[in-house]
C-alpha cells in the first residue's frame, strides 16, 4: 500500500517536471493530466471516493479551459537554456544561475522547517481522529446521512460550504467582468 502510493507520487513528480520543461504549451497541459489523474488514483487508494469524483470532474474542466486558452493565443514556450552561445563560445546564462541559486536557498529553508514540523505528526496510517471521532460515532444519528463526508459538509460545517458557493459565484462574476471589457489599445 505504502509502496504503491510512493510509486504513484513519484510518477506525479515526473509528470510535473515534464510539464514545466515542455517545449510546447499543448504538451505541457496534456502532461499536467498525469499529475491530476495520478491524484485521482491516490484518492481512491486512500478510501476517499467523493474526493476522487470531484477531482476527476475538476481535472477535465481545467484541461478544457486551458486548451481553449491555448487555442486562441499561442503555443510557443519561452524557456531559456542554462547556457548562451555568443560567437561560438558557450557562456553560463547569468539569469538562470540566479534562478537556480534562489531556488536552492528556498528548497533548503523549506526542507528544514518541513522536517521540524513532520516530527509532530502521527506516522502514516496511525492517525487518531480527535475531532472526527464524534462525527464517526454520532454522525449518522445527528444528520441522517449514510455518507459521513456529506454529513460533515452539509450539516456540521454548512457555513463553510455556503462560503465556498459564495466564492464560486464571485469567481464567475469576476471572469465575466474581466472578459467582457473592451481593453484600451
Amino acid at each position, binding site marked *: 500500500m505504502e509502496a504503491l502510493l510512493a510509486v504513484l507520487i513519484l510518477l506525479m513528480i515526473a509528470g510535473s517536471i515534464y510539464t514545466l520543461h515542455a517545449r510546447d504549451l499543448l504538451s505541457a497541459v496534456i502532461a499536467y493530466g498525469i499529475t491530476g489523474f495520478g491524484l485521482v488514483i491516490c484518492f481512491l487508494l486512500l478510501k476517499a471516493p467523493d474526493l476522487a469524483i470531484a477531482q476527476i470532474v*475538476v481535472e477535465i474542466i481545467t484541461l478544457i479551459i486551458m486548451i481553449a486558452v*491555448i487555442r486562441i493565443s499561442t503555443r510557443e514556450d519561452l524557456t531559456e537554456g542554462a547556457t548562451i552561445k555568443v560567437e561560438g563560445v558557450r557562456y553560463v546564462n547569468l539569469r538562470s544561475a540566479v*534562478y537556480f541559486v534562489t531556488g536552492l536557498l528556498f528548497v533548503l529553508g523549506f526542507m528544514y522547517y518541513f522536517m521540524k514540523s513532520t516530527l509532530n505528526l502521527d506516522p502514516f*496510517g496511525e*492517525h487518531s481522529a480527535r*475531532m472526527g471521532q464524534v462525527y464517526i460515532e454520532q454522525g449518522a444519528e445527528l444528520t441522517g446521512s449514510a455518507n459521513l463526508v456529506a454529513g*460533515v459538509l452539509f450539516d456540521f460545517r454548512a457555513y463553510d460550504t455556503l462560503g465556498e458557493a459564495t466564492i464560486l459565484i464571485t469567481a464567475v462574476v469576476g471572469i465575466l467582468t474581466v472578459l467582457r471589457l473592451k481593453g484600451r489599445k
Partner: protein
Amino acid sequence: MILYFLCFVLFLVGLYGVITRRNVIKIVLGICIMEYSINLLFVLIGYVHDGVAPIIVKGSTETNFVDPLPQAMVLTVIVIGLATTAMLLAIAIRVYRKHETFDIREIKNLKG
C-alpha cells in the same frame, strides 16, 4: 514519513515552476501543482491502516473508518481551486490580448 516527504517534493516542484518559468501559463500550472500536493498531504494525514471509506452500510458493524474531516475540507478546497484557476486563466488571456505575448518580462505594467 516517506510519503509526506514525497508530497513535499511535489510541492517544491510546483514552487520551482512558479519561480523560474517566464510563461504565464506555466506559472498557473505550477500554482495548480502546489494545490494538488497540499490536498494529497491532508488526505494522507487522515488515513488509517485497513480503514474503510466513511460510508455507513446497513447491517455491517465496521467502525474502522478513515477520518472524514480532512476529506470534507479537501472537497471544499478542490472546488475553490477550480475557481481560482479559471480566474487566473481569464486574466492571462486579457494580458495576452493587450501585450500579444505570455512573457512576464515583456509585460511591464498591468495598468488597464
